[in-house]
Structures are given as C-alpha cells and as structure tokens.
C-alpha cells in the first residue's frame, strides 16, 4: 500500500530523515513513535504529500507521490494536531466544503453519516468556534473520513485533549480504523498507541529504530529510546 524508499528530508543543512525505507501493507494499523524532533510529523507530512522529500521516493498504491500527488490525495485522510477547520463556519459548512473538494457523491447523506459516527449530529449548525477542543478533533476526524479514504494518517490526534475526551477519541479511532483502512498514527501516549495498533515503528535520530509487531513490544524497551 505504502512503500517508502530511501527517504531523506533535510531542512537547509539539518537532516531530519535519514534514508528511511519501510512498507505498509493494506489494513495495517501502525503506531509511529519517537521523541519530539525525531521526524514523525515530517514523515507524516511527506506521506500525506504535503511536503516533498529531499531525496528518495514514496509509492502509495504503486503510484509515485511526486508525480501523482493530486490523484493520490483523493485516497488519503489526515488528522493533524491543527484542526484544519474554519472556525467561523458551522460544522456542516466545513464538511460540505470538503465534500466539494473531494468530489464526494451524495454529500448530504455522507455528511450525516460521518457526523453521527463521530457523535456530533445535532451540533452541525453551530460555528466550529463554539466547539470544545474534543469536539473539534472529532469533527476533524469526520473531515478526514468524509471521503472514505483507504489510508488514514493521524498526527498526534489526542493533543490538547483531556483524559475523557482522549479516551473517547481512542474508541472512535478504533472503530474507524478497523473499517478496512490502512492507518498510520503518531502519538505521545504510549499505552493508547500500543493498544490501537498492530505494528510499531519508532523513529530515532531520523532513522527507524524499531519495527515490530505490537505483541513483541514492551513499554520498558521503548522507554529506553525516549530517555536518550
């Protein structure tokens, strides 16, 4: 599904990702871990076709992201720690806008479906400004799955959420993730990340330090990398 080959990303003279390669099969739920600055967001951003690699290639569905970016984006949904929502518009207006941008057929029905799925049906007419942070993240997820993408990228979706909201989000992600999607998620919450995923990748100093199925991973072993 996603093939990363010799990916290098440098910002000026600072190299953030050093020659990374890995594959993601359809249906996998990958938890991407790493300390701040390890390059997780950079990697996500490149997979989402928002940034370009300095060197190397990424193939999504066997298509080169640098050549077919606009087409590939139809099949990707991204939830980042910024909401990507328009505060002054209502939840419904936001979704209708994105439905147009993604050529969603039958937008009205689809919007209702996802709003119910994230538990925001009833608040859709209110401006996003009035939503709590947790509600905004839920709307962000609604936006990300609106076009039913086979690939879902989640960049620290639980940022800024309290425990209750975060666990609600976790349940939502579990439900959404199993709908035969391929998911790549970064998180700082080790426990939740490990409970959701079935494979763990860890970035350290711009390289992949850990790549193993979830069952083989222990929190103690990972903590070692965080302490460096």
């Amino acid at each position: 599904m996603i093939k990363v080959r010799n990916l290098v990303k440098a910002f000026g003279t600072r190299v953030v990702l050093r020659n990374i390669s890995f594959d993601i099969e359809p249906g996998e739920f990958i938890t991407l871990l790493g300390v701040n600055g390890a390059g997780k967001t950079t990697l996500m951003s490149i997979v989402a076709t928002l940034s370009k690699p300095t060197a190397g290639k990424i193939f999504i569905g066997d298509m080169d992201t640098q050549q077919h970016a606009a087409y590939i984006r139809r099949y990707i949904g991204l939830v980042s720690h910024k909401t990507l929502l328009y505060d002054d518009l209502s939840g419904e207006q936001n979704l209708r806008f994105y439905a147009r941008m993604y050529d969603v057929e039958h937008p009205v029905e689809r919007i209702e479906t996802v709003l119910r799925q994230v538990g925001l049906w009833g608040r859709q007419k209110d401006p996003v400004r009035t939503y709590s942070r947790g509600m905004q993240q839920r709307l962000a997820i609604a936006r990300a799955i609106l076009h039913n993408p086979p690939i879902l990228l989640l960049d620290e979706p639980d940022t800024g959420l309290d425990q209750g909201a975060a666990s609600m989000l976790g349940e939502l992600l579990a439900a959404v993730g199993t709908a035969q999607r391929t998911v790549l998620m970064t998180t700082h919450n080790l426990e939740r990340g490990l409970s959701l995923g079935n494979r763990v990748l860890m970035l350290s100093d711009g390289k992949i330090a850990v790549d193993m199925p979830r069952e083989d991973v222990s929190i103690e072993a990972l903590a070692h990398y965080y302490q460096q």
Partner: protein
Amino acid sequence: MPQNLSSSITSDRVISEHPPQFAYLHKVLAIAGKDIAAELRTKEMMSAMFVFSLLVIFIFNFAFDLRTDNANTLAPGVLWVAIAFAGMLGLGRSFITERDRGSLEGLLLAPVDRSAIYFGKFLGNVLFISVVEVVILPLFIVFFNQPLGIIVPLVGVIVLGTIGFAGVGTLFSAMVIHTRARDVLLPIMLFPVVVPVLLSAVRLTAGILDNLPFEDVQNWLGLLVAFDLIFLAVSYMMFEYVVEE
C-alpha cells in the same frame, strides 16, 4: 491503474470514480465560496475596508480643500488611493485566517492542482474588494459631483484595476503570512509592482471624467489589460512555489 487504491475501499465508494468534468472550476468556486461564507459570518474584514475607504475619501476632501474647479483634477487620484488602501487591507486578511487555523493545509490536502487555491483565493479577493468599491463608487459620484453617465465605463476600469491588483496581491499575501511583519510588508512589496495598474487606472478614470476621446487613452487601456494578463499568468505559475514545502 490505481488498482490498489480504489479497490481497497471495500466499503461503499464515496467519491466519484473519476473526477467529474469541470472539477477544477468547481473547486476554485468552492474555495472562493468558502471565503465568502466565512466573511459573511463575521463581516469584520469588509467593514474594516469600508470604513477605511470612507475615511480616506473624507480626509482627502479636507486635506486638499477640494473646491469644484480643482476637484476634477484630483478626483481620479483620490478614488484610486481609496481603492488601493482598502485593497491592501483586504488582501492581507485573506491568507491570515488560513494560516492561523492551519486550514491552508486542508486546502493543500485537497485532490486538486495547487493553482486552484490561487484562483479561488484570487476570486475571493476580487469579490471582497469589489464590494467595497460598490460602496465607494456612489460616494465618489456624490462627493465629486459626477454625472451618472460615467458609471459604466468607470466600472470597467475599476474591474480591470482590481484584477491587476488582486492578481499579484494574492500571490504576495500568500508569502507574507509566513513572515513576522506581515501587515507592513505587503504594501511595500506590492505597491512598486502594481504602479502600472494605478497609473493606467488613474489616467483612464481621468479620461472618463474629462470625457476625453477614446484614442487619447487607449494605450493606457492596453497597458492595463496587458498587465492583468501577464501578471495573472506569472502569479499563477509562481503560486506553486510559494505553497510547496
């Protein structure tokens, strides 16, 4: 071709198999429409622009003591200064909201060529400035005591001038939001580049107010149209480089 992608959506396919016809245009209009909808909710930008241009006209009136005889000489300049300043105000705003709320990324994620963002924003900007102009124009006619017959040709000049202004302005405001001194930087960057627009617009306006024959001002019209076309094209091409990461 994209076997893995579209066939892996095992549940209902929600997006159309192939992008529909005119998808690009649809998305450009969607972006412009979204900006308009957002602005209609708050109206903060347009009210600022409107009040500002009113102030400019008033101030000019008092500053230059515009009696009837020299009013006509200064009128075109006053009109275009008001439009230029109000325009700068509006241009600055259009990308700020995107950046502060991270929603520019949302646009960049959309499955459409980046240039659609440029045209969508451009259209939105043209509309916003036009709305303010719609208010300024009658005031202008009233304060400067102009005959109503000038409205149609003057609107034409105003449209062309606005396009020239917003064409480059949209590109520059996309750059300026990433900087620290964004409000100051946009006028400094934009003004020297759009001088031909201002010169042509003022000359054409003067020609209309003074009822000059068309031949006298036609090369200004040519210049304005040429500027609009060239710089719309150049800005469209450069926009990709501004939003890439």
